């Protein structure tokens, strides 16, 4: 028996003028996501239909659960619009069910001879006769069997699953994500993707103070984010020279503040170079000294570019919940130093001032250093591990 996945669009339906563009983007994203599988996708204004081969159903659903812009989906039986065949299939699809149920008919094809309510009653009767474990409850049923009668085909389904919601990635422009290797920044990236923003990731590294493992950790995190989009560019910024200069020349209390200001300056330049419109990061209000509102405003003062902080108002535990859901938590907690933790002063300033920053920054020629650093940025394209790595060996 043939089955199809019926996909209902997310918030897309509200966007009148752009609707076509949104649906097209979602279509492309799903197509890319399911690449290599034996499937056929078609779409209309209200839904997308994916035909698949039975043995790949688990993979198909798993992948659909990683695409933004899907409100909900059903796995439906698809048969010819034929009274007897529909009856037979209805009985078959309810064979294993217990508890209460109701039948809901949507008669799109008005030529179908029986009216919706009447048809629901008839089918309900047939099901009852064939499964003594079921009872009818039209108000609060455990299972609702929906029958959609179209011209040629009829769809039957019982369970509805929720997708990730959000907008298809790519309906917005690009943002530059500061990805550190901690718990918060991958979650921020995920949330930005959810709103349809394409992202580039930027990782600041201070080899040899930070290890190659810390970089690999960031690559692994980027791979996890790739599950929700296509491929992601990862810009690796060699930050050692600037960081060492800061620690040589600046007041230790201000080191973190100055370091963050340098990072923002670099972010802005990288964004311009890569057509990014905003900076995205994992700052959460009050979590550490550099994330007090005073610190944020002083650090943010170096750029006019909007800085999106998706997790700014979430509690740490809420952030952790999301990171576990998106499978980044276990990678994030691996114990490798990143450049934010490697030189932490004993008492970072909680209420820095612009004047204090400027005074410290006068101690060295940071513009030249930033220029040199930008020229040495190493950009790699990260893709989701399509197949299991080491497949030939395992």
């Amino acid at each position, binding site marked *: 028996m043939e089955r199809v996945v019926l996909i209902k669009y997310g918030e897309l339906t509200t966007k009148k003028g752009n609707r076509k563009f949104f649906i097209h983007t979602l279509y492309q994203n799903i197509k890319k996501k399911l690449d290599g599988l034996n499937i056929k996708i078609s779409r209309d204004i209200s839904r997308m239909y994916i035909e698949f081969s039975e043995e790949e159903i688990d993979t198909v659903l798993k992948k659909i659960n990683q695409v933004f812009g899907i409100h909900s989906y059903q796995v439906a039986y698809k048969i010819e619009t034929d009274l007897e065949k529909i009856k037979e299939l209805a009985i078959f699809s309810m064979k294993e069910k217990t508890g209460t149920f109701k039948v809901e008919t949507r008669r799109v094809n008005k030529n179908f001879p029986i009216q919706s309510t009447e048809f629901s009653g008839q089918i309900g009767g047939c099901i009852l006769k064939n499964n003594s474990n079921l009872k009818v409850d039209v108000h609060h049923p455990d299972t609702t069997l929906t029958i959609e009668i179209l011209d040629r085909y009829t769809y039957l389904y019982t369970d509805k699953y929720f997708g990730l919601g959000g907008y298809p990635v790519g309906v917005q422009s690009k943002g530059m994500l500061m990805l550190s290797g901690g718990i918060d920044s991958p979650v921020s990236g995920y949330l930005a993707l959810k709103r349809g923003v394409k992202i580039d990731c930027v990782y600041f590294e201070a080899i040899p103070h930070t*290890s*190659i*493992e810390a970089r*690999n950790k960031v690559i692994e995190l980027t791979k996890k984010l790739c599950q929700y989009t296509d491929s992601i560019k990862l810009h690796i910024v060699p930050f050692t020279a600037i960081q060492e200069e800061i620690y040589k020349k600046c007041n230790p209390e201000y080191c973190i503040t100055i370091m963050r200001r340098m990072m923002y300056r670099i972010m802005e330049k990288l964004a311009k170079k890569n057509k990014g419109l905003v900076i995205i990061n994992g700052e959460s209000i009050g979590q550490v000294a550099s994330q007090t509102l005073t610190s944020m405003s002083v650090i943010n003062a170096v750029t006019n570019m909007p800085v999106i902080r998706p997790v700014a108002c979430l509690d740490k535990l809420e952030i952790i919940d999301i990171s576990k859901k998106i499978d980044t938590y276990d990678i994030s907690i691996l114990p490798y130093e990143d450049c934010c933790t490697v030189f932490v002063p004993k008492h970072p300033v909680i209420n820095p001032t612009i004047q204090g920053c400027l005074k410290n920054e006068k101690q060295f020629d940071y513009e030249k250093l930033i220029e040199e650093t930008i020229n040495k940025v190493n950009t790699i394209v990260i893709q989701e591990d399509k197949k*299991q*790595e*080491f497949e030939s*060996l*395992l």
Partner: protein
Amino acid sequence: MVYLDYSATTPANPEVVETFSKVCLEYIGNPNSLHQLGVDAKKLMDASIKQIAELLKVREEEVIFTSGASEANNLAIRGVLEKYPNRGKHIITTKLEHSSVLECMNYLEKIGYIIDYVNIKEDGLIDINHFKSLLTKDTILVSIHHVNSEVGFCQKVQEIGEILKDYPTTIFHVDGTQAVGKIPVHLENIDLYSFSSHKFFGLKGSGCLIKKRNIELEPMIHGGKSQTDYRSGTPALPLIVSTSKALRLALQDLDKKYEIVKELSDLLKQEISKIDGVILNSNENCIPHIVNMSILGIKPETMLHALEQKEIYISTKTACSKDSSNSLTLTALKKDDSISGHSIRVSISYLTTKEEINTFVENLKNCIQNLKF
């Protein structure tokens, strides 16, 4: 050559050997090293363990790589006893266990543990009522095989696990050496599960202990972090990857392979039932891979060597306990000497052919004819 001793060990799958050799040559790093070669090796190790975990439906951190089932059995049994010294001194096991379990028990008895052996019913399964009557709140460990290696009895370990749910401080260890790769294995309700790779076309010197995460173990080999904290030593990456691959290949089309073996086993049983003086010891509770029979009046070793001359290879009892004369399993079933002292084991796999079975049966008949007087 007719090899009918697959339960003693199997020839390695050539694909596994290829993996082994590739990993030896191309992944030279120590998974614990911090440089890139080490990182690559670690990644490969993690992917291998992940695959084992997925195949057995357990968590990655629940897979402990060992040198094989004997080590896994020792680690499981002695590991929990040392970890939980205050939980009780009572252990329940059976006489049908592998020597690596039985010898552990003998040792434990010497140092003060009380060991009870569950009665085995005539049909080869453990007497559940007797088992229940033995359980006390001092019972720290129950160790029962999944499939017996000599005769092939397959115990209902899930049922035993269900009973043990009422005994939260009792730890349930199952020796699955003869089960993995032959029959479907479900690890719910089991705390510790051991197996060896070479029983399913993997390499000798490798195996695993599956340890559920709520159980702790005292390591037998100390020395800090390796693949796990429970067994030290530089991770044997080529063997770990090989085990993962062998397990994947073994579980591929398991039901089809089972059917092949079942058919051959039925044929074999049917043929030998026609021979006078041969008594079939394996019954409907046995996996089809093992066919144990007693040949009245002929010493098993004599039979083994007589068949060997025809290039047919079988076992007397199990390869692991060739020192004592009578079969412990058959003795536990209260069989008399004429049966327990005269048993041979034929073990087959999906690689066995009908011709091989026929060759064996013909030669068995001839040998019996020639050796009887």
